[in-house]
């Protein structure tokens, strides 16, 4: 009995720890569900749409992060010095308009996510498309499909459609036509067409 108890608690401890392995999310987003069965890649360029319509950018590929940020700095003429660039690189996500980055980088503390206003995506000033240009520049020369696999849009179900459309426009402006949407997995409904064609078939 004691042995069994030991095993049980060992497993319990393992699973508790394993669940905490996932990095805590700064931006809480409740994603919609879909029947898609492909797992979301870990390394990604993630665009998060929050409930109140703010857009955040997370550059998850550390090998290119510096390059993207430097490219954005030069193309948008932000005039960030090397110190500020290094600081920006440490940010987990970017949720500020370009013109406010410099002052924010000189603050002693990082601005919490809830107080960041998000990257502007409206039609007159779609800064996200400038960011995406820097991203495409950084990945230029490589396989376009690798980049496409990494492009993720994660949105809160309650975010309004026009914001998503703006994000799509930012992609389109840079000839990025394929991307992925992060959703929560859901079972294929019984009796549906997809169910009949076989659940194992991956789309």
């Amino acid at each position, binding site marked *: 009995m004691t042995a*069994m108890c030991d095993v049980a608690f060992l497993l*319990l401890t393992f699973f508790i720890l394993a669940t905490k392995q996932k990095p805590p999310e700064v931006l809480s987003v409740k994603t919609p569900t879909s029947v898609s069965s492909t797992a979301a890649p870990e390394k990604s360029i993630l665009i998060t749409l929050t409930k109140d319509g703010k857009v955040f950018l997370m550059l998850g590929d550390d090998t290119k992060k510096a390059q993207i940020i430097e490219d954005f700095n030069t193309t948008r003429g932000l005039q960030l010095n090397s110190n500020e660039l290094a600081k920006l690189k440490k940010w987990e996500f970017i949720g500020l308009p370009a013109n406010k980055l410099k002052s924010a980088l000189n603050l002693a503390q990082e601005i919490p996510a809830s107080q960041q206003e998000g990257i502007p995506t409206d039609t007159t000033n779609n800064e996200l498309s400038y960011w995406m240009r820097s991203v495409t520049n950084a990945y230029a020369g490589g396989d376009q499909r690798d980049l496409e696999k990494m492009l993720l849009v994660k949105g809160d*179900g309650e975010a*309004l*459609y026009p914001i998503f459309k703006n994000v799509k426009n930012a992609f389109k402006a840079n000839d990025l036509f394929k991307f992925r949407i992060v959703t929560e997995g859901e079972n294929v409904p019984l009796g549906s067409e*997809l169910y009949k064609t076989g659940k194992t078939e991956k789309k």
Partner: protein
Amino acid sequence: MAEVDTSSGGSHKKGPGVKKSKKLSTRVDLTPMVDLGFLLITFFVFTTTMAQNTAMNMNEPKDDKDKEMKVKNSGAMTILLGKGNQIYYYYGQLEAEKVSEQFKSTNYKDIRKLILDKKNATPIDDLMYIIKSDNESTFKNAIDILDEMTISAVPPGHYAEVDMIPVEKELIKQTELANGIK
């Protein structure tokens, strides 16, 4: 199962002349603890797998005015996503005199059957679902309808997201007013 013997507490007082009570075993019954352990394990096993994030592929068309696709009236179903999780739909093209007949509303539960019926009633080459999202519909709505397409196994290329035209916006507004959707 584990039962604590309380009877030995009050009545058997140790005193002079009273025989020392039987030595109690220090072993505790572990069954409930193991039960609890396994219950928690099962719980964590389930929660870890359920929260798996999945990725849905999106393919956007290139905006090219010269390559606009012609769609057969007989095979087209236009699905309009409105606010308050409402769906409006019509088949073919809107005709001025028959608008009230054509323009119908539904919800996300019933749309599956409508999509399927249309799919079964139309030759696959003519089939086209046109999805238009209202400015007040949500991200979830847009994803849900794309998911419905996958669920009903509509082949890729037979559905597309298109911008709404003013006539449809006006119709949605009117229907929303009539149905009291805020």
